[in-house]
């Protein structure tokens, strides 16, 4: 079981309370598809992903980014039980979506960078450590049901 310090709990809750899920979600997913273009393989039905401008303006991507952030919200609200909270999502990503779990790390790196830009100086090294620990737990839970 993951042990969270008071600082980590407070930090994670605080960060997510400040995020505009639509803006951050859309920006994060778009950035992931641009920086790691092979991730576009999972978005064949999402319309025009031809170049960075198209991706950034794509409403389906924006919407899906929001969905992802709301998914993360579930982990924020169940920090002591992320593994169980994500069991179904893990099965979904494995059996239905067939997403290579390495991609979770790529998306979480993009999220870190987008959140850093938004929080600016407040995103200190300690805050980043807590945030990345949280994302690592999320990524691990999402990969758990793969076989």
């Amino acid at each position: 079981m993951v042990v969270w310090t008071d600082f980590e709990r407070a930090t994670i809750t605080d960060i997510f309370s400040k995020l505009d899920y639509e803006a951050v979600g859309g920006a994060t997913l778009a950035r992931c598809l641009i920086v790691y273009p092979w991730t576009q393989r999972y978005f064949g039905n999402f319309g025009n992903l031809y170049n960075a401008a198209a991706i950034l303006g794509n409403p389906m991507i924006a919407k899906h980014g929001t969905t992802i952030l709301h998914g993360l919200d579930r982990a924020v609200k169940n920090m002591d039980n992320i593994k169980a909270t994500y069991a179904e999502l893990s099965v979904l990503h494995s059996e239905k979506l067939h997403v290579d779990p390495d991609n979770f790390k790529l998306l979480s790196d993009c999220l870190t960078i987008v959140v850093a830009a938004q929080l600016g100086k407040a995103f200190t090294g300690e805050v980043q450590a807590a945030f990345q620990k949280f994302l690592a737990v999320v990524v691990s839970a999402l990969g758990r049901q793969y076989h």
Partner: protein
Amino acid sequence: MTCLSAKDKDTVKVFWAKVADKVEEVGSDALSRMLAVYPQTKTYFSHWKDLSPGSAPVNKHGKTVMLGVGQAVACIDDLNAGLLTLSELHAFTLRVDPANFKILSHCLLVVLSIKFPNDFTPEVHVSLDKFLAALSRALSEKYR
């Protein structure tokens, strides 16, 4: 070796020109973050008295590392040749596990995202990410 496109190289050069007068600040922040977020990296600095953010050794070394990145930007057309001496240093003297290049690259990108929120667009991000990967590869050239 990855081909950085002409566009990648231009993007990197233009962006790095903006970073040039902040090398110590950027380097120190990136290094501090690395030590905080990836504590295993502290093992390479057991000889420092003070590993805290903003300490003298962290500032000095952060600047050294960023000047190295700047050197790579200057020899972006042939990273292997340009970074030969640095690669030998890292291979034979420092013996830094190359996995750590990726870690520091990530921390550098986070710092750039904070300090240049408007300039660090996704297009700049991808070119920089490719460049740092190519740099890391060139730095690992002499390892074995």
